[in-house]
């Protein structure tokens, strides 16, 4: 799959991912387990993360967004493709050569408690990166850790406490302090606020914005909450079944989505505004996301797409800029949404006439 790159000077780009593919083998039963298929978790994704900016990654469960993030972080090897970080292709590096880059790329996770060792003190958890990379020892390390704790809004006097003594929001701050300890250039945040209550979520989002500015960080921000992604991102990328459905600067993608999947996703997200909710026309998709082991032929979205035609099941649509869009706004669709087109009049059930969940074909794959 060839993908046109957004025309950008490479100096502004921290990470450039080219045609990244990650397949996981599916083993059959039996004594000698043979590979009987592949989960096509990520299938030819290209993206760029500009320096000091945030790329938001959106998609439903199983679309491959976490796998993509782990490939970029070098936690799992890619099947093919390139991850060019600051001019170096990380996929070609061996463990030793990769080591300096591990400092530059840090991850924070959804469940802050699950990513903190419950039997170790917070000071020692945050001090780990210094120990692993041998950059500071003894009192120097303690001082660096306490500075970092203060920076993320934790009380430095709590240096000797255990993770269990902190609340969910504070634990996410601990995870952040640890991620920032070595002054990375890129933070990959995989659903960092999904497990938090809204009032706490807002605290963490503000903190992330401050840290981005102070440290000049780039973020790859993965979340299923579209309003959160819109709030934090400069660019967004919508994934569906391992492929990019649509990508571009956030405002055009949110305001005038061209891919029917993006439009459906946006219309499905509940807005905390009753009048807007009542006025909004929902595009209710039928069925579930098919299995990535046997993805549908052609456009992977076609079995659920309200606009699908015969061509969609035969030919894979290229990711390209559609007429009228800025060159950085790319859509992979044969029949992109036209301005003022109303998808809710399509045959798929809307709120008034639901009960048309007859997408039996699309159910099949998901449960295979």
């Amino acid at each position, binding site marked *: 799959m060839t993908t046109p790159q957004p025309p950008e000077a490479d100096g502004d780009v921290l990470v450039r991912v080219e045609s990244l593919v990650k397949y996981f083998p599916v083993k059959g039963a039996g004594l000698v387990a043979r590979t009987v298929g592949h989960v096509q978790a990520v299938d030819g994704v290209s993206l760029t993360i500009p320096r000091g900016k945030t790329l938001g990654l959106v998609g439903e469960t199983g679309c491959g967004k976490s796998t993509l993030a782990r490939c970029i972080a070098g936690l799992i090897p890619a099947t093919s493709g390139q991850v060019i970080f600051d001019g170096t292709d990380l996929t070609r590096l061996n463990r030793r050569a990769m080591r300096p880059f591990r400092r530059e790329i840090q991850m924070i996770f959804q469940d802050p408690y699950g990513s903190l060792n419950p039997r170790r003190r917070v000071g020692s958890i945050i001090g780990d990166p210094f120990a692993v990379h041998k950059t500071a020892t003894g009192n120097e390390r303690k001082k660096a850790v306490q500075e970092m704790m203060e920076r993320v809004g934790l009380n430095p006097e709590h240096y000797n406490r255990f993770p269990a003594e902190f609340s969910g929001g*504070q634990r996410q701050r601990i995870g952040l302090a640890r991620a920032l300890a070595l002054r990375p250039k890129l933070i990959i945040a995989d659903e960092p606020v999904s497990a938090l209550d809204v009032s706490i979520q*807002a605290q963490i989002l503000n903190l992330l914005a401050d840290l981005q500015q102070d440290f000049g960080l780039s973020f790859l921000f993965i979340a299923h909450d579209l*309003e959160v992604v819109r709030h934090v991102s400069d660019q967004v990328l919508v994934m569906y079944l391992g492929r990019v459905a649509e990508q571009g600067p956030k405002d055009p993608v949110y305001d005038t989505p061209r891919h029917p999947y993006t439009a459906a996703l946006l219309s499905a997200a*509940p807005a*905390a505004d009753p009048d807007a909710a009542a006025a909004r026309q929902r595009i209710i998709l039928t069925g579930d996301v098919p299995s990535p082991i046997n993805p549908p032929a052609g456009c992977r979205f076609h079995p659920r797409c309200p606009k699908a035609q015969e061509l969609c099941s035969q030919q894979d649509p290229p990711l390209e800029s559609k007429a009228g869009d800025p060159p950085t706004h790319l859509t992979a669709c044969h029949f992109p949404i036209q301005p003022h087109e109303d998808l809710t009049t399509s045959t798929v059930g809307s709120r008034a006439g639901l009960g048309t969940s007859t997408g039996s074909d699309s*159910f099949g794959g998901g449960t295979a």
Partner: protein
Amino acid sequence: MSLLEVRDLRVSFPTADGVVRAVRGVSFSVDAGRTIGIVGESGSGKTVLTQTLLGLTPGGEVSGSAVFDGTDLIGLPEEQLRRIRGAQIAVIFQDPLTSLHPLYRVGWQIAEMVRAHDKSVSKAAAAERAVELLARVGIPQPRQRARDYPHQFSGGMRQRAMIAMALSLEPKMIIADEPTTALDATVQAQILDLLLRLQQDSGTALIMITHDLGVVADIADDVMVMYAGRAAEMAAKRDIFYQPHHPYTKGLLESIPNSSAGAGRLRPITGQPPSLINVPPGCAFHPRCAYVMDKCLTDEPGLIPVAQDAYHRSACWLPVTAAGLSEQAEEARRRTVGEGRHEAAAKIAEAIAESPEAEGSVIA
């Protein structure tokens, strides 16, 4: 007479660390055919509240009353409660996979539900009813699908199966506890639509427990906002969103990233929800409240009507004119705080303003 009348319900759990006062005097009512959304953060008591109605909080010390269709559910013998639970009040939980037995076929489990409450139904008739119900909740090829095991269903289909089970005995009321939280946005939209449509068809009352204000904005008629085991504010849906009176409600609304508000900074509520073992004296929200006054430290406000329609009520000492997001409302809040805040409250306000999360939202 409402279908459900809850009066001054209190639930506490004795633990080794002290008494957890999970629900501290909540009253509300639900009419047939209406949807009430109960909103609150973790530990606000919203789940304990509804589970107590069903007798599902063993070990809890319960007082108050909950009259459902003429019968007080609190203190009802287990035998009688069993007849109401499932048959007249059905529950849908967040995680459908743990609510379905993994080793039995989905259709069998629904049929079993029917037969558990009415032995006169034959096995064949119950199985047929299960297929009908699966069709009604939009499961394609319901006859084949009834023979599947839960793991063969996707998350959305499992939640549909749970809804089918909840509907099997035509209950008068459904309690849905975060039914769509585990689901993706497009599937969540399917399930909310389904719930709404089924409710309109059958006139069932629906209690929707959620932390997601978006879900409430979408399907609720009335909303109760809970904080630390009590109702902070109660109103028709539009009033909660457009005329919020309680600073906690206002804080929740301002915490949500919203495209119409632009990409500015969010205004989070400072601090953390309190422990239910040591609930702060006075108004439980005062240690986090930007509008804290002296009175709030000692006197716990009750629910007071804030509008002509007596339904909009708020447990806050701010005047009625402080309802809403307008400048006049903010002016009313500032004026009251200016008069009501002296040394004690000023100290707390200072602490809030100095906390790392504060965004200049506290009145100095």
